[in-house]
């Protein structure tokens, strides 16, 4: 029954709904979750709390790590040698996979992808952005990294080697972006504000103190 004199289909909205489960793995997840709840292994609330806790993680921990590395050469050396034990010095827990930290320089620019799925250093960067998990980013980054970088507004000189790191196994990568010029004497807290998520994936450079982007 048209309520305002026209006949339109209210089933079509601009806000996409969550898709009804249809894949085998989705039914498997639902069945396993319901069984665990029925048997009292975990509660529905505990599952929801865990999902919420992961969704609440942000790249702030990563930025804190980078700012510390920019200001403390010994810390940076330890970080490059052993990511897991060194971030633990800051009270950051990174367990289950090996954290490998790489440094961007004038000669070498790293950018990270997982061509197989969505491997990402979630404990320190939070959940990966949707584009990181897209087939487009995953397929194109290993083949046309400079085109992908250009779409992020990131121009790396051709004299700088772009090295795409495909995290195909038990390693999670964190990129130390180049420290912007004109930041001598800035506090670790102020420096951390210049370290964006994308700069730690390698699709961007760090911010300059005035909010612009550092030259690569």
């Amino acid at each position: 029954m048209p309520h305002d004199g026209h006949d339109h289909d209210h089933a079509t909205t601009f806000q996409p709904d969550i898709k009804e489960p249809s894949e085998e793995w989705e039914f498997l997840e639902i069945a396993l979750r319901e069984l665990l709840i029925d048997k009292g292994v975990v509660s529905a609330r505990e599952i929801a709390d865990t999902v919420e806790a992961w969704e609440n993680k942000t790249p702030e921990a990563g930025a804190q790590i980078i700012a510390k590395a920019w200001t403390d050469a010994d810390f940076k050396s330890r970080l490059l040698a052993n990511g897991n034990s060194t971030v633990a010095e800051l009270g950051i827990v990174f367990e289950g996979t090996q954290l490998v930290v790489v440094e961007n320089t004038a000669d070498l620019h790293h950018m990270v992808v997982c061509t197989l799925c969505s491997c990402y250093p979630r404990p320190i960067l939070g959940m990966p952005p949707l584009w990181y998990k897209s087939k487009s980013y995953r397929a194109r980054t290993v083949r046309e990294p400079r085109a992908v970088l250009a779409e992020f507004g990131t121009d790396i000189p051709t004299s700088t080697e772009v090295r795409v790191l495909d995290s195909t196994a038990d390693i999670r990568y964190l990129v130390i972006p180049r420290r912007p010029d004109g930041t001598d004497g800035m506090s670790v807290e102020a420096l951390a504000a210049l370290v964006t998520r994308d700069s730690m994936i390698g699709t961007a450079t760090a911010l300059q103190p005035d909010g612009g982007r550092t030259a690569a």
Partner: protein
Amino acid sequence: MSRFAPGDRVSVAKAFPPGHVRTPTFLRGLTGTVVRHFGAFPNPSLLAYGMSGQPPLNLYQVVFDMDDVWDGDGEYAAGDTVAADIYENWLEAAPQSNRKD
């Protein structure tokens, strides 16, 4: 005990076994250079099926010249590279002389 060391030239097996495999298809059959040895990790192709993944496999970062992978059919600069983390059972020693540079 790891079989390869940084700087070693290695070839990725050109194999297409069924099951859960972590070696990217686009690198199979290609030759690259070992950058680092990460240690040994449970075999993911066994872990995926509920097994223990033992014995563990050595895992290496192997870097490839973009040109060796795409032969010009991509958007990269001369000297750009792609590196992947590959388990030892996928790698064979390759002649050092293949290095282009």
